[in-house]
């Protein structure tokens, strides 16, 4: 049987017939153009990254310097975002806090993707037995809610920045392992891999040249989105007092300290909260933009 005569016209963005000209992904499916939202997101992230790399640049004040006299001063000229109950500058703390959140977000995701590859790829490529074993193991981890799993890891390795990162990474790994395996299976069965085999390309070369990269490709979007999730999880852990050590200005920790002052000194908790949301939104938006672009590239 022959397949349809031409590639079907690219998916339009909306079914209703409208004479009003609207952006439609052209049949070829070129990359969707950058939305203003994405630009804004990029800006937010740029600032966040700057805050990680050179916090001093944005906030010269020492985020841990206590000044009891100036405690709980509301936002103003001197302390842009006010001070906390120790008189520490909230702005400085928010800026310096970016480091922890992003470190956890990126680090944990990178780690979990790597681990996911190490588990998922062999599973997909090995025989039925190996696959079964690996996937059962993954099932066991998947059976636990991510937070519970993370808590469990913390219980073993103890709190702290690195450990929180590790915990979140481990908690996110099974998901990626599944993803990798699934994708790898698709790629393995794809025509181009069969074609390479038919050419007589050695198996390892096929895996390295075709399977691995084409498995990684589709991971980029979930991975980006996972960074956002990891940031939130990191905040959650330190909210529960299991994150970076005091007096580290981690956003989640600031939240959990500031929440007792919401009615007296709202700024202590509100700004770190806003920071988390902003960063996660930014990451997510970029992730989706990336999705659109990739989807645009491969028809």
């Amino acid at each position, binding site marked *: 049987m022959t397949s349809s005569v031409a590639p079907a016209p690219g998916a339009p*963005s909306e*079914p209703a017939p409208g004479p009003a000209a609207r952006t439609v992904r052209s049949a070829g499916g070129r990359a969707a153009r950058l939305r203003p939202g994405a630009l804004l997101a990029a800006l937010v992230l740029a600032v966040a990254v700057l805050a990680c790399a050179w916090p001093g640049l944005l906030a010269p004040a020492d985020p841990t310097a206590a000044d009891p006299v100036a405690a709980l001063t509301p936002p103003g000229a001197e302390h842009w975002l006010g001070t906390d109950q120790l008189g520490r500058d909230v702005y400085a703390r928010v800026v310096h806090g970016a480091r922890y959140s992003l470190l956890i977000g990126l680090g944990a995701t990178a780690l979990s993707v790597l681990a996911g590859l190490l588990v998922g790829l062999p599973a997909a490529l090995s025989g039925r037995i190996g696959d079964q074993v690996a996937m059962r193991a993954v099932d066991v981890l998947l059976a636990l809610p991510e937070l519970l799993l993370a*808590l*469990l890891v*913390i219980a073993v390795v103890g709190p702290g920045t690195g450990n929180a990162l590790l915990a979140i990474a481990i908690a996110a790994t099974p998901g990626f392992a599944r993803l990798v395996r699934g994708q790898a299976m698709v790629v393995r069965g794809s025509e181009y891999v069969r074609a390479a085999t038919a050419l007589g390309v050695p198996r390892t070369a096929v895996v390295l040249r075709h399977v691995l990269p084409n498995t990684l490709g589709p991971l980029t979007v979930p991975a980006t989105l996972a960074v956002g999730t990891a940031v939130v999880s990191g905040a959650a852990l330190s909210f529960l007092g299991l994150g970076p050590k005091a007096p580290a200005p981690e956003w989640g920790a600031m939240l959990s300290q500031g929440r007792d002052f*919401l009615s007296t000194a709202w700024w202590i908790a509100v700004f770190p909260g806003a920071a988390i949301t902003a960063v996660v939104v930014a990451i997510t938006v970029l992730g989706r933009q990336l999705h659109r672009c990739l989807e645009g590239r491969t028809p």
Partner: protein
Amino acid sequence: MSRFARAALHRLGGAVLVLWGAATLGFLALHLVPGDPVSTLLGGSVTTGSAAVRAEITREFGLDRPLFEQYLTFLGRLLGGDLGRSYQQQQPVSLIIGEQLGPTAELALTAFGLILLFALVSAVTTAGRRRAVRGAASGAELLAISTPPFWLGVLLLTLFSFHLRLFPVAGAEGWESLVLPAVTLAVPFGSLLSQVLREGLESALHEPFALTARSRGIGPLALRGRHALRHALVPAVTLGGWLVGGLLGGTVLVETVFARPGLGRVALDAVTGHDLPVVIGLILLSAAVYLVVNTVVDGLYLLIDPRLRGAGPVREVAA
């Protein structure tokens, strides 16, 4: 039929494996914990108990015996359906979980209901509409997804409970005390689900069969209701399955913020206090839930998509 039986058996076997794995994982995890089990047992209380007390504990929980032996006895008791006694609370784990299950189930189920409601309404009404509408909806959802649930909870609490006094601050009596926690849980997950649903709906609306359907002269609602929705449900169900786990995890935070009793709090206490028996009990519970949910999800797939029902081969009828 025999095929069904085989499938069921296979599933059961898998389930047992997972449960066993989960239990072992928990056991190992908390035996890898650095430090001396007795003092974890004493719950890190300011006192450390006299030597006599420590000795007594060691003896009672058989902590002096080799790890492997402890593991075997542990497994043996599990098989006997005995989850053991909590280190910290000195009570049967089954009892603790039993009495705390109620509030959590209540919370999770209510949240789940809200999630479905919210997602369906928001997705169906906005899918494939004008960009402005869709943009507004998905923008709000994005915000909701990106806000840490505990933070959302604190805000809701301050606003609706402390200031407006519409809802009780804490506790688990009556539906009023359920509203804020449930909403807190539901908002982020609901938004996520609604985004998935909307995407599903829209991709379904681009399928050729949607075009065919419209070429028959049906209206937009019929198109969504009769055609697109079922297609959108497939990814939604997948997410839904994952979501249950997410909800359980979420209860840990929400119950803490809203000072509600429930398994979330128990879990937090148990894990931070290294209360091994309780932790394992919870692990087994959530594993069981996960397995049930997965079974249900797979069932739903079959219900939604006839192509997945292995009902006979593709009929190659010579037309």
